Every structure is written in structure tokens, then in C-alpha cells.
């Protein structure tokens, strides 16, 4: 390290910088919003609970914070996240459907891909039509990637090897859009694979990097974050919107001329169906303010600041969400025997 480098490094670490940072954080935390108040008979008159079926500090948490930080300006209320992780999201949904009143003062912030596939594997205790997704925030496609030191370096390598032997493919879990994408690829190319659930994104990346599995499939955001340790070969979407960050990998439809629907993790707000029926005005208010967030330049700044991918931000309303939920249910039904082992 050169002297000048060292000096700048040391000077950047003054005690003052810490104090300043602390003060900035405090200001950030306390700054409320003073935006205009709107219709819907005083709604909302208190905070809105957001049930998150994954753990605090995870991707959904960061995503939600970035979004609600802007949304609260328009809805003029605060959002209170409640984290109920467990059983691949089941606990959160059960809590939301079972313990929260359908009065539009509580929402669920879920992932429409894997969580809907869950219902195919095993039905929840409530009717899955009793809640709807209505506000899509982002879409993150699944992708296929190798560890940088893998013996199989290209798609052709993989296909050729896959015709010789059964390949071991890591995935975060079976009931996941990326796994479905892999099954579709294997079906199309006639290779044999065993999907090996490695419990979570971290371990799935590690599995490919360390050679535990031949390669892995996963939500692409996590893969892009792994940097040079991995190399993406294929994206299960219409387009590789991240480009360079995913090694300019082509999509499956481009390479094989298939017609595979996008295999997405897709975060969206959901609400009790009964709340929509009982309080259409409140629901309307939620929707209209939600829509405004996407056009707010502050939202883009907040996503970029949290090192999220703006390319993945993708507004969707009731219709798009319903279509997606339906597509997932159909795909799940098609591969049900593989997903449940029965």
C-alpha cells in the first residue's frame, strides 16, 4: 500500500466521521413525512402492519424498507413490518390470514414465485383465493450458473456431460421458479439432472463454487451479488436485463427457441380478499398511492443506494399479479410429482 493510499485510508476513519454518521442515521430514522392527505374517509388513521414471511435483515426486508420509505409519503402513514419467518414462508401467511383483521390495515409482503409454488406442494390451512396479490414491486429471474473453477465452463459442456451422466444441480429448494426452469431445460435438451436442495441462496452459491454440485440454479440477484466467484450461463427470462452483472448470459428462449414463461421471484404486496370487498375505497387508495412510488425519483435513488437492481423494479397491479399467481399454480401442477417426490 502506498503512503498516500494509507493516509487517505486513515483520514477517512476519523472519530468525527462516526459521529456524523450516527447523527445522519438518527435524522434518517426520525424524519417523518408531511405529504398531503387524501380521500377515503380518513383512511389510514393508524399505521399499517406489513407481514413479511421471511427473516429480518433479509432481501425482502431491505426491499420493503426502500419501498415503504417512499410510499409513506403518499399514504401519509407509517408501515410497521412484522417478520414471521419459517416453513418457507408458510408461517407468515398463516399468521396474516389467521390473526389479522381484513380491514386494509395489514398487508403481506411476499414472494409470488416460491411462495405460490408452496401451496402446490402442500395446501395451507386457508383458501388460497382468500388473499390476492395486488402490488408487484420487482421481478427477479432465475438463472443457471457455475463456479468460476468448474470443469463445465459453457452450456455446451453441460449438455454434453449431461448426456453422459446424471448431473447434480444445486438449488435453494425444489419448489422454486429457478428449479422449474432447470427442469424445463433438462426436459428440452434431454439431459438428466438431480436437483439438490442446499437450503438457501448462500449455500447454493457455495455449492457451485466449491464443487459440491456440478452447477446451480438460483434467483439472479443473489448470483450477481456473488461477483467473480461464479459465472452465469443462462437466464430464465425474456431478456437478461442485468447484462454485464450476469456475464451477458443469454436467455433460455434465445438459445433453444423455447417458449418458457419467465421464471421469476417476484415480490409483491398482498391483501385479504375480504378487505378488498369490504373496503373498496381503502383498497383504491392503497393502489393509487402505491403506483406513485414508481415514478418518484427518490425511489430509484433509494433502490440504488441499497445496492438493489433498478432493472428489476417492475410495477404490476392486480391483473398482472393474478396472472402470475395462476401461471405459478399451473407450472407447479405440471411438475407436482417431481416437487413432492410422489
Amino acid at each position, binding site marked *: *500500500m502506498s503512503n498516500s*493510499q*494509507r493516509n487517505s*485510508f*486513515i483520514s*477517512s*476513519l476519523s*472519530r468525527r*466521521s*462516526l459521529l456524523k*454518521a*450516527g447523527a*445522519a*442515521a438518527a435524522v*434518517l*430514522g426520525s424524519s417523518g413525512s408531511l405529504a398531503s392527505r387524501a380521500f377515503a374517509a380518513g383512511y389510514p388513521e393508524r399505521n399499517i402492519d406489513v407481514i413479511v414471511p421471511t427473516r*429480518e*435483515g433479509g432481501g425482502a426486508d*431491505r426491499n420493503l424498507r426502500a419501498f415503504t420509505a417512499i410510499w409513506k409519503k403518499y399514504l401519509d402513514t407509517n408501515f410497521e413490518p412484522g*417478520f414471521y*419467518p*419459517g*416453513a*418457507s414462508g*408458510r*408461517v407468515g401467511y*398463516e399468521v396474516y390470514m389467521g390473526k389479522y383483521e381484513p380491514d386494509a390495515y395489514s398487508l403481506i409482503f411476499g414472494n409470488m414465485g416460491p411462495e405460490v409454488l*408452496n401451496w402446490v*406442494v*402442500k395446501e395451507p390451512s386457508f383458501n388460497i383465493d382468500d388473499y390476492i396479490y395486488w402490488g408487484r414491486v420487482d421481478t427477479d429471474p432465475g438463472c443457471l450458473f457455475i463456479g468460476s*473453477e468448474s470443469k463445465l465452463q459453457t452450456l455446451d459442456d453441460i449438455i454434453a456431460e449431461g448426456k453422459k451422466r*446424471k448431473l*447434480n444441480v444445486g438449488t435453494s*429448494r*425444489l*419448489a422454486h421458479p429457478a428449479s422449474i426452469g432447470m427442469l424445463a431445460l433438462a426436459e428440452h435438451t434431454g439431459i438428466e439432472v*438431480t436437483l*439438490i*436442495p*442446499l*437450503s438457501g441462496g*448462500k*449455500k447454493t*452459491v*457455495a455449492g457451485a*463454487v*466449491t*464443487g*459440491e*454440485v456440478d452447477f446451480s440454479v438460483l434467483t439472479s440477484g443473489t448470483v450477481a*451479488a*456473488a*461477483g*467473480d*466467484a461464479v459465472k452465469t450461463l443462462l437466464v430464465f427470462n425474456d431478456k437478461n436485463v442485468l447484462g454485464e452483472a450476469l456475464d451477458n448470459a443469454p436467455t433460455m428462449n434465445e438459445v433453444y427457441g423455447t417458449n418458457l414463461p419467465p421464471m421469476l421471484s417476484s415480490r409483491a404486496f398482498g391483501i385479504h380478499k375480504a378487505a378488498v370487498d369490504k373496503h373498496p375505497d381503502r383498497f383504491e387508495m392503497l393502489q393509487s398511492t402505491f403506483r406513485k412510488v414508481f415514478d418518484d425519483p427518490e425511489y430509484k435513488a433509494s433502490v440504488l443506494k*441499497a*445496492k438493489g437492481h433498478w432493472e428489476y423494479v417492475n410495477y404490476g397491479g392486480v391483473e398482472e399479479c393474478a396472472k402470475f399467481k395462476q401461471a405459478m399454480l399451473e407450472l407447479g401442477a405440471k411438475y407436482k410429482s417431481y*416437487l*413432492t*417426490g410422489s
Partner: protein
Amino acid sequence: METSFAFFTDLFLHSLSLWWVIIPSIFLGFIVGAIPGFSAANTIIILLPFTLVMDVEVGLVFMVALYCASRMGAGIPAILVNIPGTAGAAATPLDGYPMVKKGQGQMALSISFTSSTLGGLLTTVIALLSMPLLARVGFYMHSVEMVVVMLFGISLIATIASKDTLKGLIAGFFGLMIGSIGADHVYATPRGTMGFLELYDGVPLIPALVGLFAISEAFMVIEGESILSEHSRDRLQTGTWHQTLEGVRITLKRWWHVAWTSLIGLVIGVTPGAGAAIAAFVAYQQSRAFSKTPELYGTGHPEGLIAPESANNGVTAGTLIPLLVLGIPGGATAAIMLVVMQYQGVNTGPRLFMERPELGYGIFMAMFTTYLLMAFTILPLSRYMSRVTLVSTTFMSPLIIGFTLIGSFVPREYMFDMYLAFAFGILGYIARKTGYHVAAILIGVILGPLLEQYMLVALQKSDGDFLTLFSSPLGNILWVALVASLILPAFMKHRQRRRKSVFAEGEG
């Protein structure tokens, strides 16, 4: 990349200049480590908004110091009141608590702090010097090898069961069975969950830990005025700095023991996904296997305390290696560090050491400095902290129950986890009263699910062929080592006995 002596000296002096971040972080980490249910990981998550606005270096140093200190802090309740607040400290009470009961609380803390510090310092230095090499460990430790590593830990059940083999094995296998509760790792079929969604992800560890160890103990100790005997009370009350110094002396004398058990921690820590609990149990098992006095383990034997404490602090350095060198986090705390580094635009993986070597190596240097500063700030406290055990059980037992029930709620915030801790408390009480070893149950609960997970990956990869477990050269070496560590102690004992009898005959 310039990694000369001067570079490291510079780095060391620089991290010393960050004492104003490190020392407060040490105390914070120490406290959260001592609270059951809290961990470095969830404290860092709570403080994330602050960490993100700090300068990246300060933020990382803060997290590293908190992480190391919390590991050390977790040893305190584990030793003093038999409450291991995290899975990493689960092996610590095995010999730590019996020492306390003998009135050697101060010494036990001193041994724990000294071996944690030494283990931490040593593994940090090794990590600094051989990082690229160590990062390769993960490339060889795959599911097959990890199955054997798990068995090292699980074989402790047999060791613990040595007094009453049948009952010990029943306790251990019952634990393994309880550990099998939850959705299966492949198809997510719920098994043995009694209909509770809260059990889908398996039995949560903190309620099991505090229930089996602490709550059952709280129901037991009300039989006496204090958890200490009359004699031990006097011993502790009249204790001076002597016990602390004695602890330091005992540990320093066994420096070799500290060295190799902390290395076990380092290697297990480097393996992505493995954790402090495995390291602590494996180190304890190995320590006992190669001991000349294995029968003393579990009765308050210093080596039985040194092994898990050195090992779980070795893990601390280990988990950061795959994060920094490969860009893949080895554990929960490392994963949050990754978030912070990404947020600040710092690349992890090979590029980190090319672009910002002072940061890559700096993190380990900060860790080194933290351990060094801890030796001076924490060690002197052991004399005062050990006094906790003098509190009458009238106050102690309700405190333990309240504290642990709250602690079991904290990680997931489910009332269910409090009920579970209570249920485990009753189970632990019955087990203790009727001669079943709670530690054997606990090892099963902690290591059982991990064994199953690795076993399933290995079997899935080979289409269900059990012979795959013997298909890797490294795996086979580990198998031989496992068998040797199980047979050797018995063999040595037998030979010793024979030699003695021959000697006796010769004399007679």
C-alpha cells in the same frame, strides 16, 4: 499485492488506533453474547442502519469486534449458570459448570477468556498468513466429508454415555430423533411436527438449549441455598486474584491444547455452512479422545473447557475467510458483513485483495487487535462476574427461568418457542433426576439435523448409494481418524492397565 512485514505492522498500528471503535464494541458484544437468544448476527441487523452510514472500515471493524466479543460473552452464562445462550457455547458448560459448582467460577471464567483469546489470536494470525490456502478447504470438504465430521461430534454421545451406556445411548438417540423433527430437506414433507408450523424448520436451537440445560437446572438447584456447596462458597468468597491468575497459568501451560483445538475450529469455520457448535463438540470429543485422563472430563476438567472455547473462537476467524477470499459468506454474521460491503461498493472475493488489500487484511488485523484488547479489558472482570454464583437460589432460579424464557422468545418472536423451552425444561428435569445425560440429548438435537442434511446431499448425489460415503480419499482418511479416535483411548487404557498389572506382578 504487497504483504511484507512492514505492511502488517502498519496495519496493526492502524487497527490499534481504532481502539475507540473496538472497545465499546467489545463491551456491547460481550453483553449481547451473554444474553441468551441474542447473537452478534441479530444485534448487527438491529444496528444495520448505523453500520451502513459509517465509513466502511469503521463499520467492518465494529462488526468484527462485536462478533468476537459476543462469542466470548456467550461463555459466561454457559459457565456460571449453565445457560449456553448460543449453539456455539453448547459444549462449554460440560466442564465449565462443574468447575463453578466446585467454587472455581473465577478460574473457569479466566480459563475460558484466556483460551478464547489465545485461540482467537492464533487462528487470526494463521488466517492472515495462509488465507488463500485455507480458502481451499471448502473445495475439499463436501457433503461426504462433512458427514464424517458430524459423526466426530455425535460420537461424543457414546463417550458421555460411558457411565451407563444404555441410558446414555437412549438419551443421545432420543435427541437425534427430536432433531429430526421438521420438513424434510428435499421435498419439504413435515415430519413429527405434531401439526405445529413453528416446527417445520426443525426444533429451534435456543429453546432446546436453554430448556435442557438451564430451566431444568433451575428446577433442580432449589434443593439447596446456593448452586454452590458450603465449602465452594467459602472458597469463592475468600477468593482473590489468585484464581484468575491460576486460570491464566493453567491455560498457558496447555498452550499446545489451545493451539490444536482452535485449529479444529478454524478448519470447520472455513467450511461454508458448518458452524461453531460442530467445532466445539468435535474439539471436545478430540480433546477427550487424546487425553491421558479422559475420565476427568465432565467433572470440571480444565481441558474440557479449553477445547470448546478455543475452538469456537477459532471458528470466528474461519467464517470470514470464504467471505473475503471467495465472496461466499460462511455464516450468518459473515452474510451481514457481505451486505454492508456490497452496500459500500466493496468487492469481495479475489478482487478485494487486489483492489483494497488494506481492507481485506485489515479485517483480520482488527480481529487480532480485538482479541488483544479483550485480554486486558475482560479478563480482570472474571473475579467480579463469578460472584453471581453466590446469589441465593431463591433469587437465582426465578431469574434463570425469566431470563431464559425471554431469551427463547427473542430470535423468532414466537410464543411457541417459550412453551417449547418450558417443555424441554421439564424433559431435562426428568432426564437429570433419572440419570439420563442432558448433554447427550442436546448433541443429538443440535448435530442430528446437520448430519441428516449432509447425508441427504451425499446420497442424492449418488442416487442413494450408501457406498458413496466411502468414495472420497479425504473422507476415508477422516473415517480412519474417527475410528482411531474412538478405539485408541480404550486401547491405551487397556494397555496402561496391563502395564500396571505387569508392573505390580513384577513387584510382587
